[in-house]
């Protein structure tokens, strides 16, 4: 890769604070929305993002470029979400609070989306919103590429059926 992102991580590992701020600016909102959709709680999601950024800062020097920076960060974030859900297991199954769900059409969409299992929801988010590849999702979720492929196939069809049922 040798990307700007990798250089950014090297600067973080070298202790450059502005680099940490750059990382935050690039990723905090993306991670926050992912964490919010997973934890369904604004406060929990903010904590998760904080913990993710601190963990990234602490382990930047161990980053070896085996995955892209965004894949690496989402992998960390996913672990932090799992920690939060262990502390608060019912969070994942409650509806998204209306205060954060957006306008009427977004609320309607989330109501339908919530009929899926949490695993399917996460996968579809990573594929269709965040645009990760099969390999990247395999790295983030720590599953083989073949599993990502087949699970996405079925999850998409399930969501499609739900959306069709509504319209």
């Amino acid at each position, binding site marked *: 890769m040798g990307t700007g992102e990798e250089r950014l991580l090297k600067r973080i590992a070298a202790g450059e604070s502005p680099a940490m701020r750059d990382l935050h600016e690039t990723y905090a909102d993306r991670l926050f929305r992912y964490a919010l959709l997973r934890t369904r709680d604004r406060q929990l999601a903010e904590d998760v993002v904080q913990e993710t950024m601190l963990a990234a800062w602490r382990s930047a020097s161990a980053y070896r470029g085996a995955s892209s920076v965004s894949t690496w960060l989402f992998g960390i974030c996913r672990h932090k979400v799992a920690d939060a859900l262990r502390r608060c297991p019912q969070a994942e199954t409650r509806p998204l609070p209306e205060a954060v769900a957006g306008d009427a059409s977004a609320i309607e969409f989330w109501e339908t989306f919530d009929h899926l299992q949490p695993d399917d929801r996460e996968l579809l988010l990573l594929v269709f919103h965040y645009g990760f*590849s099969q390999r990247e999702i395999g790295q983030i979720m720590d599953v083989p590429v073949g599993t990502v492929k087949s699970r996405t196939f079925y999850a998409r069809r399930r969501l499609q059926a739900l959306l069709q049922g509504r319209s």
Partner: protein
Amino acid sequence: MEPSCEEALELVPWVVNATASAEEQCGLYRHIAGCRACRTEFVQSVVLQRRLTRAVQALPTGGVRPVTELAGPLTSLVEALGGPAIVAQAVRQAIELPRTRPALTVNIPLVATVRVGT
């Protein structure tokens, strides 16, 4: 080689999210040019992606903002924030590292995230 219907449907999400290879993309496009059922699935997936992304974009962004200060003890970080002692305590907790790690030295940059607004 043109994919079968099953292979085409497996490719759909990855062509829609633009991470399929050029070869896979061409294969799928060739297939859906002549297969109405798979074409419908493809179009529905594009719509699905639109709707999902629109809904995600309607979500709020986080109220967490980074505060970074170079090379100083916690007190200078707090001073930089312009906060009183009680803020120092909150910041100390916010950036506290695991106890199993050696204590931070003053030459490591301090990084904290501070919540702003409500």
